[in-house]
Structures are given as structure tokens and as C-alpha cells.
């Protein structure tokens, strides 16, 4: 099925990643897969921008990284949400919903 490579804004990628790992720690590949799955294949993460984004978020202290064993017994880096990250997630979700509501309002007016 053809996927549309929607241009994701940098900020939105942060939000998506934070939400994805809020449930459980995952490695980078799983995060990309999960985002694609949950969005019904609409949002396809640019893999080239995924890892720099993950590193930046780690620098900012929103996520923490730890080496562990993957499902097929290979070494992989697992990312989990920190307390600061949880707060960031809440803030960004609130911002996104406000923006979303605003745009919907504008589109509704005929």
C-alpha cells in the first residue's frame, strides 16, 4: 500500500516519540514501527531524522537510554521516559490539541 511520506515537523516527532515510549521502553526501530502502525501507515518516520532526534531528547533529559537485549537476542539501546519527559509530553499534547482545535475551527467556517 503506498504510504504518504507526510512531512513531519521536528516538534511533532518529539511528541510522537514521547507518547510511544510512555507505555514501555523501546528501541529505536520499535519506536518507528509503532508510530507507523498506530497511525495506520500514514505517518512514516524519516529514519534519518529519528536517531538524531532521540539523541537530542536524551541530551535534554526527556528520555533515558539503556543497553539491553532485544527480542531476537541482540544488543539494542532501549529508551524510556523520564519524569521530565512525562511533563514535556503533557505540555506538548496540550499545545497540539489547542492547535488542532484552532485549525478545525477555521476549517469549519464556510
Amino acid at each position, binding site marked *: 500500500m503506498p504510504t504518504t511520506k507526510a512531512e513531519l515537523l521536528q516538534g511533532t516527532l518529539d511528541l510522537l516519540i514521547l507518547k510511544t515510549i510512555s507505555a514501555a521502553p523501546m528501541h529505536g526501530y520499535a519506536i518507528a514501527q509503532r508510530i507507523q502502525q498506530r497511525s495506520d501507515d500514514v505517518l512514516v518516520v*524519516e529514519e534519518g531524522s529519528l536517531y538524531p532526534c532521540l539523541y537530542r531528547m536524551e541530551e535534554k533529559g526527556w528520555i533515558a537510554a539503556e543497553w539491553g537485549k532485544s527480542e531476537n537476542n*541482540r544488543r539494542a539501546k532501549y529508551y524510556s521516559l523520564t519524569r521530565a519527559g512525562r511533563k514535556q509530553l503533557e505540555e506538548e499534547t496540550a499545545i497540539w490539541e489547542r492547535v488542532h482545535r484552532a485549525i478545525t475551527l477555521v476549517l469549519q467556517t464556510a
Partner: protein
Amino acid sequence: MKLMRTIWLRIRSLWQRREVKQEIDEELRFHLDQRTEEFIAAGMSPEDAAREARKRFGNWQSVREECRDVRGASFGEGMLRDLRFSLRILAKSPGFTTVAVLMLAIGIGSVTTMFGVVRAIVINPFFSPNADRLALVWSKEGQTVSTLDYFDIREQATSFAELGAYSLQRVNLGGDHPESLGSASCTPGVLRAFGVTPALGRWLEPSDEQKGAPPVAVISHRLWQQSFAGDPGLIGRPIRLNGANVTVVGIMPADFEFCSPWLYPYTCEIWRPLQLQRDQVGRDTGWWLVMGCLKEGVTLAAADAEIKAIGARFKAAHPNTNARKPFLVSSLRFEMTRYSSSYVWMIFGAAALVLLVACANVASMLLARSVRRHGEFGVRIALGATPGQILRLALSEGLLLSLAGMIAGAGVAVADVRVLMFLAHVADNRKAALVLDGHAFAFAAGLSLLAGLLAGFPPALAALRISVADLLRTDSRGAAGSNTRHRLLRGLIVTQIAVAFILANVAVLFSASYAKLIEANASLATDYVLSAELNLCGARYEKNDVQTRFCEQLAERVAALPGVAAAGFTSQLPLRGGASRDILVNDEVFDPAAERTVAECSEVTPGYFAAAGIPLLQGRTLRAGGVGTNVNDVVVNRALAEKCWPGKDPLGKIIRPNAAVAWFQVRVVGVVGNVCRSAGEPKPPPQMYWTIDRAWGKNTFLVVRSQRPGGTLAPVLQHSIAELDPDLPLSRIRTFQTMVHEATQDSRIVAWLTNYCMIVAIGLVAIGLYGTLSYHVLQRTREIGVRMALGASRRDVVHLIFRQGFGWVLMGITIGIGGALAVTTTLRAMVYEVNPLNPLSLTAATGAVALAAAVACWLPARRASRVDPMAALRCE
């Protein structure tokens, strides 16, 4: 928490760069492999799957680079790249690079040299395992301890692990070449306190102190090597000291430094046992230096308090003698550095200021050059360079220059140290300590890093303020960032001028102080007077009258030599302190608690006054032996006459000792001029001169005034003495000129060094001003062209440029005056007879700086006046 995490990640990126890079690669590879497997599971062939996965991933290399950048793991490579680039740029302009490196080299080298000096002379003035715990006990400030007091302290004090008494003398070493050496008679505790083990043989022991024990001595390593050729069989063999055979029982290790107050400029080469008698002595007898090693954990303050308490007990028990002896303890390190440390630190500060000027100079040169690289920085920013990267690039130039400066500076420092050792009278062990070792080089490295950052910072700051939009304008002269650049340049040149002004002021002060010192001692400094030291030791001169007769005989013989105008003996030379006594005059009575006049006592033969050139002001001098001699004559100096009998005629007055029993009573027969006790003394002390038979020491000085410059007399003098006693060496033969020269040496060195700092600083300022003004003229070329087109003459343009330059100079001097006033008030104690706040020195400093500035402004001003208005207007 977040900051800690970031710092930890950065540190990890620096120290474990390879691991961090490998981890990044591993993580990305894992992702790629998972993607490949997914494609294989979907039915692709392995090669196709791999290729698709790669394609989907995007540009593998750039992702890797970006990840590394975020982590900071590419900092090292980026830095190296920047350094290589800066190196190429610097190599393209060798003239600028050479000048900048030279400036930094001089600055870094000077400060490193002073660091070595501070370490060798102030922080660790001597080497000993117990250096921190060596302390001296005094009965009063600068006063020795008596025998009975010493024994009592030894029994009662608990703060000292080792305690001993000693006194310093000169001894005559016999042999093929008799020489006069410094020696200490000490109890065993003194040597043990120093905590070193003998290189050969043993120390002095309590058994050597007993009456009747065979005479032994311990000698220094240097003496062993020089006079006995390092013969290990010397232990147990006798040497001839003061005409008697003394067995050598020990040899000190090579790095042993026996330090003591009052030892300079001699060194101690021989240690002999001190035989102190406890009985049959008065409480006040004995003049011993007491040195000891504090116990572990006992502070100096605690020891001082204990000794003071013991002193108070003495005072209560023996009020007659101990009433004015509060007792105190001072550390040996303090005693050895108390006079020199402030000067050394001051010169260190001056050298640091010179380095500051050099850094500011290099910074302004870099700043002016960065105009040309304006476009390059703009392009970098446009291509996405972060401020951090720009900063790194701009700083790397400064760091490279300072690295080269450090290497060249090491050479400068080595040369500086050589020059210093040549100029200053420094003991051999201190010379060894002054060598620049690993610590000094580490200091130089740290210093050059700091200097590089300082020098590179202003251009970096200017580079950061560049805005890309402004760059696209073709008019690059008026480009953005030039405001910052102008302000920075102005700030830098004004700072340099202010600092140079402060240094000039300090140098003028110390030069004036030295000039005053020379002037005050000018009457003494003559080539026509010779002095030599004689040590009348040994059994032959045991008796006092033998000693007296010998001196009188020798004085007559020497006075009779052709070419000699006068000759005399004295127990202490001018400009060297010696013995002093408390005296009673007029109706004063002995009161142990009262402060009395302290007079310096010299025992002289009558010819001394004429020989030394001390003028007779009133009465007569002492008469020679024979009929009519009255041994109760005394000659006083003007200071004593004015102190004790102000306004009255001193002739005929009686002087008595400040003791319960008046064991002498002398009558004043004459008044002579004043002679200082040390070169820098503001007021000469009261002095009295009496006949030589009162001399109790073995050391005496022959003073000879000749009709020709004194140097030629030395062999003749030796001959005369050899006729009377062939074993007696005549040592330290020098003219009074040399004597004054040596006494004023410290002041002279300080003046030289501060002048050196001033000259270097002013030279740097001149170069900096020239450079800044040239850049300024370049910036204003168009304006100058317009002015000239509108009718300004060449002279007007020159005035314009001079005004600009001198505006900076004025600003710098104004700021500098405040700094100079602050600095020189703290220097008040260090200058001789010169008021630090006098306007003459400020004027002289201003003059020096202004002169240099005028010379520096001249060329740019001339160049500005040569501007062709049409070319200037056209060349944008």
C-alpha cells in the same frame, strides 16, 4: 540534574570517543538489520532487502555524522580541523605570526621565570624534609637567647621535637691555600632538626659537647669536593682549623642547605660542637641562636604561646635580666623570606601585567586581521555553522599562537633565568632550585592556554556578531560587526596603555629609590679605600692583649707602606650591622624594665677614622697605644650625641653600661660623622667607637686608604701580614666601592627588573597603538578622502589622526592613574626615601608613555596624510 547529565555525556564523549562512536554505529546497524529482516520476511531476496533498507534509512553517513555531532563526539576532530586551518592561515602571513609569537613568548617566558623565582626563593627557600616545622626561638625581636634561658627552655618546652643552640663564626682553614670559611658552633639538636642524614660519617653527638672531648667537625659537601677532592678517606682524618687539628667525623649531603638569619651573604661550611657551660655564668650571658623542629601536629602559634608563657616565668623569676624579654617563636621559612618576599611577588605581578599587555596586543592584531576573513565567517554561518563552531574556529588561531609562544617562551625563560643568576648573588643550592623543571613547564602550558584564550576571545566575539544579511552588501568596510570590533579595539588599546602606565610608574619609583640610595651612600663608595677581613683565631690569639698588639702592629706597618694614606682596624664595617649595647647616660640608672639608648659598638684602632673617611666633627679621635693613652676614651657619632645630649656639648660626658654593675665607664672625647648600618637605612643609628682591646670577637676588618685606586694594594697587604703570621689568610679584599655596590645589589636588581618590565610593556603598547591606528586609518580612508577633497590640508589630517591616537592615550592614562595610585600605596614600604604619591613620578611615567605613543602615531598619521582623495573615494 539535567546539567549533570549533559556534563556527563560530554565528558564521556571526550574521554571515550571511540566507545561512543561504536555505540552509535551499533545502534544504527541494529535498526538497519531489523529493517532488512522485515523485508526478507516480506519476501525480498537478502541483497534486495539490504539495499531497500539502506535506501529507506537515507544517507547513512550523514545520519551518523549528525548523531555524533549531537553527542559532541566529533569535537576532537572538529578542533583538529580548525587548528590545521588556522595553521595554514597563520603560515600565509609569516610577519604577523612572528611578531605575535614573539610578544607572547616574552610575556609567557617572563612570567614562567618569575614563577621559578617565587618557588625557589619565597615558597621553598631551602630544602629540608622538615622545612615546615623548623622554627627559631628569640628572646626579643631579633635578639639572641642567653645560655641559662636556653637550658631552661630546653627542659620546659614540649612543642619541639629537637632543639639546639648555635652561633655563627668565621674560621680559618689551614693547608696549602688557607681560606676563611663560615662556620657554626652548634649543639647536636640543630643538625638533627634539619632532618637529613649525613652523606658520610655521623652527626655531632652529645659526647662531643663534653669538656675535654677531642675536637671534631662536620664539613659541607661543597667544601669536601673543592678542598679535599671528594676523598672518602677524609672521615677520621684531621684538618687544620684555626691552627689546631680537628678530626672530620661527618660530611653533609650535597643538597643540604643550612639556613639561618644573619648568615647571608656567607654560607656555612663547617659545623663544630658547641660546649655550653651551665654553671658559673650569669643569667644574661650567652648570645645564642636557638633553632628547633616542631613536633608533628604542633602549630607555630601553639609553640609561640608556650614559649611566651615560659618567658613570663623567667621574667617573674629573674626580673633583673629578663624584664624586657617577651620571647617569641618564628618559623625559619619566615625569617629567610621576610625581606625578599614582597619584592619577588611584586616583580611577579609586574611580569603578569606584561603578559596581559602582550595578550591584549595580540588580540587587537587578530581583531584587525579578522576584517579580511569577514566574508569567510559569513559564508560559514550561512552554511549552518553553530556559534560554538565559530567560537572554536576563532579561538584556535589564538591557541596556536600561544602554543608557539609557549615553546619560544620556554627558551626565553631559560635565558632569563641565566641572566638573573648572573645578576643576583644567589647561593649554589638556590641556583639548582631555580632550574626550570616539570612544574614550571606545566605552569607555562597552563599560562599559554589562558593567554591563547584571552588573545583569541575578542576576535571570536567580533566574529559571532556577524550577520549574514549585512555581508551580502558589497560595502564590506561598513559591514556589521565593525561596531563591536571598534569598541573592542578601543577597549584593548586603552587597557594596554593603562597597564603600561602603571608599570612605568612602578619602574620610575624604584629607579628613583635606587638613585636616592646611591646618593645617600656616595660618600662611602670610593675606590681609594680597601677593606679586608681577618680572622684572628687559634691558640696564638687566645689572649686579648696579643690580639690587640697584633692589630696595632699591623696597622702601623700597613700605614707605613708606600702609597698608603691611612690604615686602621675595626670590628664592624660600615653598611654591616654588628654588636650593639644598651647604654646609660646622664643620670639614668639601671632599671630592667626601661628602654635605654641602644648604641652600636665598634672596636677600632685610631687610624680607622682617617682610613674609612669618617669625618671628625668635634674633639679628637682615639689615641694610639703608649704614653697618654686612656682606655676609657670613646668617640661617638653625631646621631648618638644628638640623641643623648641634644643641644649640649657632648665632650666629656660619661657613658655607662645598662647593667646592675657598671663594668665600664667611658668618657666622650670626640664626635664623628654618621655611618649607616645597612644601605637602605633611613636614619643612621647611634654609634660609639672605642679602643680595640675591648674587642671580644675574633673577626676584624682592616681598612686601608691609599693614594691610588685600591686594587693594586692587595698583594702588598698579603705580604705584610705574612711577615707577621704566615698562616693567617686575608679574605674578602674589596674596595669600599665594591662594598657599597654589593650592599645595594638588591635594590639595583629590583630597579633593573621593573625597568625591564616597563620597557617591554611600553614597546608592546607602541606596536599595538601603531597597529590599531593603522587599522583605524584604513577604515577611515574614504572619510579622509572626503575631508581632503573638501579642503583639509595634509597637516589637518595628521592632526586628526594624532587626536584620535592621543584620545586613546589620555583615556588609558586616566584609568591608569587610578590603578597606579592604588598599586604604589601598597609599595610604600618597599621604596627608600621616595614618596610613592609624588607627582614627579606620575609625570615621568606619563612622559614615557606619551613619547612612545607619539612615535607610534607618527607613521599612520603620515600615511593618512598621503591619501589621494580621488583614489580613496573610488576604491570602495
